[in-house]
């Protein structure tokens, strides 16, 4: 576990991800839906933030906008000093190769590629030679004690293994921001715990992470929990308070 409190790090370090007054409106007129309303959020290195909320509260929208897959209607998204709201498609793609890693609920890995090749993919797309990218990928896998999976194809791995390889891919190279959208959603709880343990350890090693989840049990791995309802942040809590929340507000959701 982190020896540093997130509150102390806030003062010393710049956030990896900064969301400012983020709003997103889907559709217009009668079909207008406010998915996000003026959300502010900073995520610092070494910090894992859990985002919770009911269906339709804007969790996934927050994540896709943070990763540059979607654009906000208003507000700013800054990833490692780059304002991605103003960036063009190419810059965004480059940012996803070099700064942001995604982990989805399922189908995370490209079935045609082995674990190592999946992890190496962002680097190879960036123009790194296949040999070097593979070396980095194997190193990343070994660091996460997944080295034995390197040459397996996704359909030769369990769901938990796949998700852990996906986390390895999300953090290969210099990437320091992991956006995880219910990474445990398709897994049983024990396997889910192991996946979150890995995510936690990567954050402890210096990465910043956002974890969207339904389950308070998994949110407990986070340093901070942000509650969303109808597109707005209704509550924030530091990790020390998370446990007490389990019995309180979270239970209502």
């Amino acid at each position, binding site marked *: 576990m982190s020896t540093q409190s997130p509150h102390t790090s806030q003062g010393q370090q710049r956030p990896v991800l900064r969301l400012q007054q983020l709003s997103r409106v889907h559709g217009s007129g009668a079909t207008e839906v406010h998915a996000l309303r003026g959300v502010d959020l900073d995520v610092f290195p070494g910090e894992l933030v859990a985002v919770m909320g009911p269906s339709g509260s804007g969790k996934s929208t927050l994540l896709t906008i943070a990763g540059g897959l979607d654009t906000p209607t208003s507000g700013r998204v800054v990833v490692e000093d780059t304002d991605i709201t103003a960036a063009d498609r190419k810059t965004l793609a*480059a940012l996803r190769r070099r700064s942001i890693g995604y982990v989805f609920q399922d189908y995370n890995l490209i079935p*045609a*590629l082995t674990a190592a090749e999946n992890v*190496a993919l962002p680097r190879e797309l*960036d123009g790194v030679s296949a040999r070097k990218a593979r070396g980095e990928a194997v190193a990343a896998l070994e660091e996460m004690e997944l080295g034995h999976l390197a040459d397996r194809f996704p359909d030769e791995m369990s769901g938990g293994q796949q998700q852990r390889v996906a986390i390895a891919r999300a953090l290969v190279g210099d990437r320091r921001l992991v956006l995880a959208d219910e990474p445990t959603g398709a897994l049983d709880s024990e396997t889910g715990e192991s996946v979150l343990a890995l995510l936690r350890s990567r954050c402890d090693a210096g990465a910043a992470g956002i974890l969207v989840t339904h389950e308070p049990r998994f949110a407990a791995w986070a340093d901070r929990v942000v509650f969303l309802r109808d597109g707005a942040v209704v509550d924030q809590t530091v990790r020390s308070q998370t446990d007490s929340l389990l019995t309180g507000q979270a239970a209502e959701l």
Partner: protein
Amino acid sequence: MITWYHSWRAAIRIARRDAWRSKGRSFLVLAMIALPILGVSAADLTLRSAELSTEQKLERSLGAADARLTDPGYGGAPILQTPNGENFTPADDFEDKPYPEGSTDVTKAAPQGAKTLKDATGSAKLRTEHGLLHTEIRELKAADPMAKGMLTLVNGRFPADGTEVAATTHFLASSGLQVGSTLRARGFDREYTVVGSYELPDSLKSDQVNALPGALLAPLDKALKADGLPGTGAEASYLVSLPGGFTWNMVKETNAKGVVVHSRVVGLDPPAKSDVPFYQKNDWGDFGMSASARAAALAAIGTVVGLAMLEICLLAGPAFAVGARRSRRQLGLVGANGGERRHVRAIVLSGGLVIGVAAAAVGTVLGLALTYALRPVLEEYIGRRFGHFDIRPLELLGIGLLAVLTGLLAAIVPAVTSSRQTVLASLTGRRGIRRSNRVLPVIGLLATVLGAAIALYGSVFSDQFAVVAAGSALAELGVVAMTPALVGLFGRTGRLLPLSPRLALRDAVRNRGRTAPAVAAVLAAVAGTVAVATYSASSDAQQRAEYKAQLPHGAVSVIMDEAGSARDVPAVRSSVQKLLPVEVRADISRISVGSANCSVWGGSDGCGTYEVVVPPQNECPLWATDPANPDGDPAERFSKEERRKLAEDWRCQQPGGRGVYVPDGVVVADASLLKVLEIDDPAAAKALAGGQAVVFDKRYIDKNGGGGNDDGKDGTDGRDGTDDGTDEGGTDEGGTVRIKLITDTEAAGNAFDEGREAPGEIKSFRVHRAADDVDAYGLSVIVPPAAAKAAGLTTLPLGAYYSTDSLPSTEQRQRLEGELDKTGSSVMLHIEEGYTSENSIILLALTVFAGLITIGAAGIATGLAQADAEADLKTLAAVGAPPRVRRTLSGFQCGVVAAMGVLLGSAAGVLPAIGLRLAERREQLKWYQEALDNGWGGLASDPHVPVVIPWATLAALLVAVPVGAALLAALVTRSRGALARRETA
């Protein structure tokens, strides 16, 4: 650059593994691209291997000799020749002197110290297991070292003495004989033993028998001539071997002695053009292909290759689209991991690249292997042994590149489409109406209009097929580009339909991105089929209209017009009567000038010919030689308008040559011939019985001795009087036909050249003129035997005409043919069955092909639609729809795609075919007009180029194929869906 390279490597890796993961689809596309590549590479290999090097050619024609000396038949007069000896001409001009003729002793022309080997060929009818076979006889000492390489021994050995022969394997196969059999020639008692078989590497299909010099040709010739039969026509050439070879200077020296030389040294190192007197004298043009002809051929090949690639791309494209669609989430993941649009494009394009490269490899390797394995078969098929197995890596590489290019082209559209998807849409599988491209349909419309305009221009204002074809191709591409918009139009018709078809139609229209490629594929296949079907149905109709029966339907004729065959005619006449259901038999004979062994056309020693004299007043002015200017074209005396008018004149109508091939269509026969030819003219029969000739070509009638009408146009009036029954039993119109017997054909030829009347004895016959509308099937004059005899004409049996009770069956025909094979002469048997079309099978095959493609493409689209419609089906099931809705929906989805494609394709296919036909009509009209202008009008007929729509094919495509596709899709769809799996929201 390096970056680009590395990201492509990743893309190719994904594509390669994907291709391997979905083997069925990959195999389909691979086969589609590899098959044409296989064919083309095999054709390239075969062509290149069959091309011989100069050395190989020389070995096959000269063996190990240095040269071959041949007598050109100019009686030893000095000649000039081309280096290869294929063309030669007397050195002097013979414009005022008689052309030199006669043989010369070739051996005397050979240089001193040269060794010679005689190589003589003639021909004879040899007795086989099945009858007689006209065979080439070659007298050459094949075992001589000089002949090495000319004949390849296959079995046994070459003959060693005068009683032995060897034969080609082809002769043994077609004669039913084998090594060890005895062989006899017709008209010759001596027996020969076949001691070996061989083949001629350059001509595997020739029937040839090899004997030692003097063993067969000379004694056989003597025996035949003694029997009054034509001889073997033997000609000898000499192989020459001399130290140092036969140089060009020696060739020229030998030419001076009147002998043609084919020399090895000259062949390997031909003299400069300026050193060849032949070229100087004859102003010899290069008879090879001109540059423009080559360019035109190249353009034609280019067009065919281009069109083929276009069709393959249109067909393979949807498969890549399916692949891209199936791996949408995968492509989304690439995007989520920082893949740019170009990366996504690269992955889908790599799919095309991988399949293209695989297809290139598989196609060329299979082409190589097949050609190698089938080499003997191919050699037999083209009739010559390959020089060697000639692999041209560059050409094969080029052919392979075509496959790669096709794969890439087919994947372009799916690649661009999938790269346009937002990452989010790809990841979530979110549906919704994608705004279809608005520029593409406009471009498509422009291309369609432009292409149609070009095709229209081509068919109305020019006679260039290429213009029509190019315009049609452009228009078809345009329609393909418009497909999404057109598919949208179909959606409007959905309102009235019941649920399942309505849902299917709406779904197809909403998802144009996936419907359009499938519809385009169907469109392409159907358009091609309909175009070919329309074109061939039209030309079939044309051929049917142009078909000229040689006899009334069901009638049979046997003709034997070879020299010396008259003696076999009676036997043949009766075997036909015995074996076929003959009703009436009419024997026909021909007029012979000279001995009984002369052929119909005369010309050889002691053989003359005859002609029907056209009275001067009946001669077509366009053809009649102008005595003042015998060398000029008679038609040039008239203006264009006059020529056109004359072309309509009855004197200038020439009946098309069909039926009996005897000079001027004159046969000697009695009235039964009229019955067989179904000419119902009692007066004519009476005339024949009364010793009058019946004439069908009124140009031949000389009226000087008869009635007063001289324009020949009111023949029917004149004929009315025939019923009166004059004592001659014929017409009161009178007139005669005059037949000139020409014994000295040479003098006749000279007279013709100088515009004089040919010398000859004239026999006149009183005639009866048949009505103008009578079809005599190519006969012009029938002379009754009695009249011929009375006039002192020599006649020879020619054959017979028969009418039958019923069309002879296949068995009857086979038995007859077997019987006729045993006859000593060649028999021309004709059984009139009317026009038989060969197109119906092609049409059927095309329809089946287009149907299969349609069902395949529609099936692919249905698979896609099913994957997409999973959510709709779940909703349907939730509101209580029965499980079969799933089936009917899938069936209708397939049917909708097939129907749209077939409808658009039929329209796109009929139009270019009509355009092509119109262009063809224009071209033929142009030729016809030119012919009229030049005064050849009577020979050409008014062109008839109909346009026929193949309704049966269209109906099958329009109705049967969509219904079949729908039923098939419904059958193979499971009623119950797979369990839903939660997707990321």
